[in-house]
């Protein structure tokens, strides 16, 4: 716990006032003024007594902050509970103050950011605040400060509350249009048009239709039902989508708003694709706050989407390498994956990535935040579909 030795003395107990009181005492003793001497002694005694009390007040006082949610979206509320315990016989005065204006705001404007209480011997008190998350990121929980001192509050001492694990605020989810991404299926379209059927994914059986090839007949099921049954197939494998985010141009252009909008679109798209049963992954060349992975391979399980959203929450607008190098290097891009690429504008890096994906015959869609104000002839030529990021949002006209 960090101790702040700074004090906020009362106006009656300030050093100049005490000097004057001392002078009064001296004069009163010289003149034999008993009443004035007594008054001056009381003031001086009170000052030294409360100062000693204040010095001892910090000992045995502990403070702990807990939050009811570790992860939330912007605009959602969080309950912060700060518990102060006075584990000694000396009563103390405590004041808790919520610092505002950072990542969290108080839910109600009427609610006070400062709370006070007195703590008797071995007593505890709990202060609660309802906070609203303002922006994406990894944030400490409100950083409440608390002051402890004598019951008269003459010499308060300040302490920082031990902060618990940081709160993860995901990017905001926005409604999106359905994304039509061409996909490549090695076994063709499941069903009669498929050149090859994958026997591992039989959805079920149904009555055999005479125009269907005989190879679809499920002989075992036909024998049991005493009529011909044919197999119904599941898609060969679940659709895999890899979301690519190139951070370079955002950082160069200091486009913070565009970066946040892009992250919102990526998070929303990941959630939308997950609802559709796709496996979603993320690859970015951005830096992340703290330890943790920067990429999420395309997969599908219970903890996958929270992990992807956490990477987006931790992401900073600073590049740490080239996205294409990452694609070519340690990240193994599976053959059946489709890609959605996000960048600030149509730059050379996006063109190189597009060429690489086209050479691999990987279906891809490109989204940019800003079209460059350059003549058509000078503009990098992306042969794949390129859309403005705004077109992805539900309330915008145009493709996709």
């Amino acid at each position, binding site marked *: 716990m960090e101790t702040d030795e700074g004090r906020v003395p009362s106006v009656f107990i300030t050093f100049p006032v005490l000097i004057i009181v001392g002078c009064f005492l001296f004069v009163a003793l010289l003149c034999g003024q008993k009443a004035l001497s007594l008054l001056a002694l009381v003031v001086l005694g009170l000052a030294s007594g409360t100062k000693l009390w204040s010095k001892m007040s910090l000992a045995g006082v502990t403070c702990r902050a807990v939050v009811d949610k570790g992860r*939330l979206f912007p605009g959602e509320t969080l309950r912060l509970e700060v518990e102060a315990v006075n584990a000694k016989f000396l009563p103390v005065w405590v004041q808790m103050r919520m610092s505002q204006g950072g990542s969290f705001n108080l839910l109600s404007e009427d609610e006070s950011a400062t709370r006070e209480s007195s703590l008797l011997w071995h007593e505890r008190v709990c202060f609660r605040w309802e906070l609203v998350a303002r922006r994406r990121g990894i944030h400490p929980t409100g950083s409440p400060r608390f002051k402890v001192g004598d019951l008269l509050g003459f010499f308060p001492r300040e302490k920082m509350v031990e902060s618990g694990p940081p709160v993860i605020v995901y990017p905001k989810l926005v409604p999106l249009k359905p994304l039509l991404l061409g996909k490549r299926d090695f076994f063709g379209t499941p069903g009669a048009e498929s050149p090859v059927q994958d026997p591992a994914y039989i959805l079920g*059986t149904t009555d055999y239709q005479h125009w269907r090839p005989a190879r679809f007949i499920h002989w075992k099921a036909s024998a*049991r039902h005493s009529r011909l049954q044919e197999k119904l197939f599941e898609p060969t494998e679940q659709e895999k989508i890899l979301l690519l985010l190139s951070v370079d141009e955002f950082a160069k252009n200091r486009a913070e708003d565009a970066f946040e909008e892009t992250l919102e679109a990526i998070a929303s798209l990941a*959630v939308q694709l997950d609802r559709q049963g796709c496996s979603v992954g993320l690859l970015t060349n951005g830096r992340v706050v703290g330890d943790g992975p920067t990429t999420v391979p395309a997969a599908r399980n219970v*903890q996958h989407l*929270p992990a992807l959203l956490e990477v987006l929450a931790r992401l900073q607008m600073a590049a740490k390498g080239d996205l294409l190098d990452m694609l070519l290097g340690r990240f193994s891009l599976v053959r059946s994956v489709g890609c959605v690429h996000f960048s600030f504008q149509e730059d050379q890096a996006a063109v190189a990535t597009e060429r690489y994906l086209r050479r691999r015959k990987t279906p891809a869609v490109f989204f940019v935040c800003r079209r460059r104000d350059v003549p058509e002839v000078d503009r990098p030529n992306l042969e794949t579909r390129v859309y403005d990021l705004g077109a992805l949002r539900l309330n915008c006209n145009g493709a996709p």
Partner: protein
Amino acid sequence: MDFSLCRKIMDNVSRVIVGKERSIELLLVALLADGHVLIEDVPGLGKTLMAKSLARSIGGAFRRVQFTPDLLPSDITGFNVYNQRTGQFIFQPGPVMANVLLADEINRTIPRTQSSLLESMEERQVTVDGETYRLPHPFFVMASQNPIELEGTFPLPEAQLDRFLLKITLGYPDKEHEISILERFQEEDPLQALAAVADPSELAELQVLRKNIHISHPVKSYIADIVGATRDGGALRFGASPRGSLGLMRAGQALAALRDREYVLPDDIKYLAGSVLAHRLILREEERLRGRRPEQILDEIIQRIPVPAPAE
């Protein structure tokens, strides 16, 4: 009431399964409560081995079905075959006609086949071509599934999940237990030497005796409070069903019996609530995105609800 036979079964299973006393105890709880168990964990932790050890310890007919995508409902329930000699259809029973059925990797098969177990698990019977056949008693289903990768799997429907009394996870062994496993399995498979220490009729009697374990009104009220709190919205989209509260009561009676008590304590209910109720709860989408699990929500509910005092 003498439930020492259950202790013998637990000791027998512990000869094969190392360091999983709680899981083995929960298996016995489900068996005594006449329920079924879903064992969920990553591959290689001994889910199938535990099920086989228990099946061997309690004797009776044991069947194992490896669930695959092309498995048909009739592969589970059985089917009618035309006998050319007699000119009649003869019922060919499926693996469900057993005392202990191990449904291995149950989420690898299609929901239609998964659903074929619904009637068997709840009503202890199967219906094939309009004819109903009673299952042997006791009938105990142990299903296993891997929670890590969902690709190529079919999550169990809610109706199916609700029919499992308990969901058990095993977890990795610690270092000492890992060494014990290596030593125990170094030369021979202890499962091969495992003999039955009970028979199905004895277990059926214990299941009847379990019903006599006393459960007081405050404890019943405590169960109702916990189950009711799961239905109050908040982080949960759907709470536990009355089948869940019945399950919690029966499991509490079984645990009390296993621990040589003739009455259920609120602590029994707290101990079992996660295993009995968590798999019946459905989270809201935003809670799922936050990476929260039903077990955490249930823990919060249990912390919030006051435990009945002995004098009440």
